[in-house]
């Protein structure tokens, strides 16, 4: 027999073989690969040419900026502080910077499992918000008072996002539990709140909180406009988040709660030890989604006159000297949004890996 003379199997390893198999397996495949590859390269080099090679980098070279030419990053040098700090007084920018760092640090720390305690987390946020207020508002330790009308830029965006989530999350858990309650009144009220708030646009809710409340509520009960807006935003957030958490609660087999009841566990013990940990785990992807949406939606507050980072970006290009550089400013603001949102997504992925480890 000629068995011994059979050729060895073709070597099907290495990048070349992979490319032949995956990218050029047929004429059509090869054509698509080449066409699409060329397109991607073209886009990449156009972007590189605009943003780096043909760009003007410093303020002194501003005269070199021409319409249709490369990016004119001089605008960031000239107007960057306006974009980042809004209307915050120029000499006090260090305070806004520190305040922003405090909130970002607090956000970072509360992502660490070590801080997830019923006592630790509220304490952490109390300290975080306290530090932020101290720095931003001032009025003590010789810091001049800066009213909320002058707050703006990145620190305002971060403050709104953080406080909406921090106030909204506990509220959403309460709403979700109330909606599943055995008591018809509580169940009805929670369901009513969620359904009513969800059927109103966020814009309307914020506009009402900022503009309508002063007409119907007496002066002493109005509070600061920023506080009203944050509270309204938090309620809106909570109504959406409550439904996400309720979905997580419903995914838990009813047998678990029944077993806990049979063991004599009280309601809050069952909720805290059995229901919520599992509900959070299964609603995690949707929750991260909601966080990302909320971060991006903070830019809506511009319509009620707050100088969050998108509005201050618009203010930055709204002057004769820089009117042509709006793309550069949008790219800059977009990059800042990207950092935060991408960070959130990566954190979500980490939590999911961690939860899987716990389950295994």
């Amino acid at each position, binding site marked *: 027999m000629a068995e011994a003379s059979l050729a060895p199997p073709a070597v099907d390893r290495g990048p070349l073989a992979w490319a032949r198999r995956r990218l050029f397996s047929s004429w059509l495949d090869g054509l698509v690969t080449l066409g699409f590859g060329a397109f991607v390269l073209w886009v990449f080099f156009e972007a590189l040419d605009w943003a780096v090679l043909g760009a003007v980098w410093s303020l002194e070279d501003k005269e070199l900026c021409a*319409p249709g030419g490369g990016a004119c990053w001089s605008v960031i040098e000239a107007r960057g502080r306006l974009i980042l700090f*809004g209307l915050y007084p120029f000499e006090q920018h260090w305070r806004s910077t520190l305040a922003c760092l405090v909130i970002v640090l607090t956000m970072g720390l509360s992502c660490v499992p070590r801080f997830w305690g019923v006592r630790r987390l509220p304490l952490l946020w109390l300290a975080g918000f306290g530090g932020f207020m101290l720095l931003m508002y001032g009025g003590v330790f010789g810091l001049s008072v800066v009213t909320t009308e002058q707050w703006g830029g990145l620190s305002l965006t971060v403050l709104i996002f953080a406080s909406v989530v921090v106030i909204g999350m506990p509220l959403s858990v309460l709403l979700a539990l109330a909606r599943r309650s055995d008591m018809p009144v509580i169940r009805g009220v929670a369901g009513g709140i969620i359904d009513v708030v969800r059927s109103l646009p966020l814009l309307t809710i914020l506009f009402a909180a900022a503009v309508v409340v002063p*007409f119907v509520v007496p002066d002493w009960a109005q509070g600061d406009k920023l506080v009203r807006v944050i509270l309204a935003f938090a309620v809106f957030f909570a109504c959406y988040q409550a439904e996400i958490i309720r979905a997580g609660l419903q995914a838990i087999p009813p047998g678990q709660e029944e077993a806990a009841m049979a063991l004599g566990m009280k309601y809050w013990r069952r909720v805290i030890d059995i229901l919520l940990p599992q509900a959070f785990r299964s609603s995690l992807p949707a929750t991260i989604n909601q966080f990302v949406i909320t971060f991006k939606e903070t830019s809506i507050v511009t319509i009620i*006159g707050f*100088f969050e980072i998108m509005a201050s970006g618009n203010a*930055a290009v*709204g002057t004769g000297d820089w009117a042509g550089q709006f793309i550069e400013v949008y790219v800059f603001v977009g990059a800042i949004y990207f950092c935060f949102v991408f960070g959130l997504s990566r954190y979500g992925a980490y939590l999911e890996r961690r939860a899987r480890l716990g389950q295994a």
Partner: protein
Amino acid sequence: MTKTLKSLLAAVACAVALPNAAAAESATIQAIKDRGTLLCSGHNGSYFGFVEVNDKNEWKGLDIDLCRAMTTAILGDPNKAQIVPLSWAQRFPALQSGDVDIIIKATGWTMGRDTELGLQFSLPYFFGGAQLMAHADLGVTQATELEGGTVCVEAGTTIERIVADYMKTIDVEHTMVSYEKAAELRAAYLANRCDAFAAWGPFLAVLRATEIDNPDKHVILSDQLSSEPIAAAMRQGDEDFVDLTNWMIAALLIAEEHGITMANVDEVAANPPNPTVARLLGSTPGIGERLGLRDTWAREMIAAVGNFGEIYHRNLGENSPYKLERGLNNLWSHGGLLYAPMLD
């Protein structure tokens, strides 16, 4: 009978109140003095030349300077102006709820705002209206030559209706294309998708001066499609406050008329060339008492922000990036529409 009695009572009440009317302070002015700041409208971004933010995170612009002028008149210090950022939609509710004392924000005087919204307007301080800009290589100089052309406008604005009405009046066939965003509109025009671009006149001039590589390639057509008087808006029911705003604007115009500037105001006040200037600058007492202010309010105001011409040139005219011609916004004696009441 009761009617007669009522009118009689009203007449008596008027007669009693009249002697005090001049000295009596308006509730708004009293509130401003108690608070120590004047609350003016800002913007949630920038509005070319009128409301902008400079590199030092401070407000500037024609409207902002008028607010600072008013603050100086009432409180003696331009830095006591407090600018509250407001969106366009938010400005009237904010005025009614007391978030601001006055709206000076490129706001047109319309009947609806005057009556239904319960506002009161000052003397107009600016005139702007819809105009058309076209590519220069079309050789068009007026709207009648746009026969068969395409006109781009921003969707849902009053400009859209004004252009349609105007083109119908002069009987010019055209295609109107609306864009949702100002930036899209700009891009469409620059990409030659429309022959002409309709917008608020000052906005077109600013666009032509700053965003277009070669301004000579574009002409602003001579037709004035509409003219909107821009004025300060206040809450109904405080006549004394409206008086003050009117005389603030009037004083800036009179100062320009007589060549009183930021630089020479003290000199002129010490040595007034005529009785009007003497009254304006308080060299002859009286101007303060009538409004419940100091006799030197106009003088301090001009020292702080300059006369109307200086304010215009700093923000829109030759000392700004926009180089906008005065045109209608010159004094009546120079061919414009700005007109101050008599200072007697």
